[in-house]
Structure formats: structure tokens, C-alpha cells
């Protein structure tokens, strides 16, 4: 009787082993999730465009390389393409109800040097890339054309530059 029980237990063990091996097939694999977050763009109006004193009937121009030229300082993701657009580009500077006609010129450079800037039409905007350190400088010049009877006073206007990836 005792001898007969031993193969029975062996049989049970074998069956359990077979069932276990059939049901336990399991495996896993992995992938990665990846993302690259870009540095936010900052645009700083660093230097105002200043025409200084002007006289009625005498046009006055400020070149990109002149001391009175305006400058925007842009920072963002290094070596990344950006679009430049002036979203506010007045045709007149204003003093109360009096207007002083103005036209603008512009250029950009990855270095803070107007002399090496690439010119572009302010009304059309431009596409370029930030430098290897994520910098870009946009220079603004222009010409005012005061009328012969231009009223005396201080004339101002706001120019806004929008930069997008």
C-alpha cells in the first residue's frame, strides 16, 4: 500500500508542474517616453530708438549703427529657429493730437553688433536662429519727416517685437 502511494504523489506533482508551466508564461518589455522642453523666449526692449531734436521740414534718420538706434535683446533655446514680427509699428509718433510721420528700418545679429546685422523689412518680419548660447539682437532705426509747420513738442510711439519658435 505504501509503495502504491509514492507513484501517485509523483503523478500529482507532475500534473501540477505541467499546469504551472502552461499558465505561467509571462514576459515584459520596455520603451522610453521622451520630451525636450525648450527654453522660454524672452524679449527685452533694451534701448529706445531716439531721434533727438528735429526741426520742422527737416527729415532726420537714425541708422541701425547710430547711437540713437533701438535694440531688442532676445534670449531662448540655443541654436533654435525663430520668427521675428513687429506687431506694433506706428506710422506716426504722436504728441497729443499732433502726428510726426515715421518709417522704420531693422536688422538682426546673434552678436550685439549692429554693424554686422542682417537687414530686413520691419513690416515683413524675418526668420533666423538664436545663437549657440540662445541670444539674438534686433536693431531698429528709422526716419522721421516733420512737416514744415510741425508743432513743437515731444513725440512718442511704441514699437513691439514678437518672437516665436
Amino acid at each position, binding site marked *: 500500500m505504501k509503495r*502504491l502511494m509514492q*507513484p*501517485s504523489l509523483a*503523478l500529482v506533482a*507532475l*500534473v501540477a508542474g*505541467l*499546469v504551472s*508551466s*502552461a*499558465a505561467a*508564461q*509571462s*514576459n*515584459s*518589455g*520596455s*520603451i*522610453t*517616453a*521622451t*520630451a*525636450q*522642453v*525648450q*527654453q*522660454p523666449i524672452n524679449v527685452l526692449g533694451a534701448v529706445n530708438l531716439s531721434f533727438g531734436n528735429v526741426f520742422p521740414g527737416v527729415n532726420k534718420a537714425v541708422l541701425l549703427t547710430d547711437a540713437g538706434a533701438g535694440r531688442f535683446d532676445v534670449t531662448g*533655446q540655443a541654436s533654435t529657429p525663430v520668427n521675428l514680427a513687429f506687431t506694433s509699428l506706428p506710422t506716426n509718433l504722436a504728441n497729443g493730437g499732433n502726428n510726426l510721420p515715421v518709417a522704420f528700418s531693422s536688422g538682426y545679429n546673434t552678436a550685439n553688433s549692429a554693424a554686422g546685422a542682417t537687414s530686413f523689412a520691419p513690416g515683413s518680419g524675418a526668420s533666423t536662429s538664436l545663437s549657440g548660447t540662445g541670444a539674438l539682437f534686433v536693431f531698429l532705426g528709422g526716419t522721421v519727416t516733420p512737416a514744415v509747420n510741425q508743432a513743437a513738442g515731444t513725440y512718442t510711439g511704441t514699437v513691439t517685437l514678437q518672437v516665436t*519658435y
Partner: protein
Amino acid sequence: MDLCRRLVLALAALSAWATPVAAQRPLTVQGVRSLTFGTLLAGVNKSVLRTDAINGGQFDISGPSRASVLLTFTLPASMAGPGGATLPLSFGSKDGGWSPPQQIGTQTGFDPRAPFTAPLDQNGKVSAYLGGTAQPTANQRAGSYTGTITLTVVVLP
């Protein structure tokens, strides 16, 4: 003696029955394609669809012909980035999918947040896909972020 003979026959029968199980194709799970969100801007969510053949995640599974398998994703709540920064991830009820192998366009969707049963085809194959959404915060630190997604597959008896 008769009982011993019957046991021998039973063991022989079991051995014969066990043969097909031993010959079954082994279960393999291969991570084929990462879930790639690409370039993100701080504060702007970005989703990748499971049907995206370039950026969507994909696993290829191989096992016994026509078996049912239980798919269980281990999904991270965020990706890790520079200086200990984390970027939140979320997965929706339709972000998981399965199809016959390599047929990404004929997926059946499922909720990857819960275990799901899918069938292997006559060749013992199925592909599993995964989409998701990255949710960078408004002040998300710039840099590269990564996370690990694991798919565990069990052949159902």
C-alpha cells in the same frame, strides 16, 4: 500490479499530452518604438496619438498561436529631467491599442491604465500601441526628459 500498470499508462498519457505545451512558442515582448513627444513649450500640453507611426509607442508580442494574453502597462506619472525636474504625463482611456502585427492602422483601442486581454493571431503575434499627453507646467525647466514604460504580458490558460 494492475494499479502500477495503470499508473504507468497514465504517466505515458500525460507525457503525450504534455508534448504540445513544451513545443509552444515562447512568449516574447519587444519594445519597438519609444513614445516621443519631441519639442515642448512650457505651459503647453502635447499629445501623441497611439496611431502615430513615428512618435507613438509600440511593442511587438510573440507567443503561442491564437492564445489570449493579458496586457498590463506600467505607466509613469511623469518623466524625469534635469536637476530632478519632472514633467507630468497622463494617459487616457483610448491611449492603448492592439492590432495584428505591424498593422497600426487597424487598431482596437483600450484603456492602458487597466489590464486588457488581447488575442495573438495564428502566428502567435500581436502589436500593442501607446499614446499619451505630456503636460509641462508654465515654469517647466528646459531640458531633456525621459521615462520608462513597461508592458507585462501573461499568456492566459
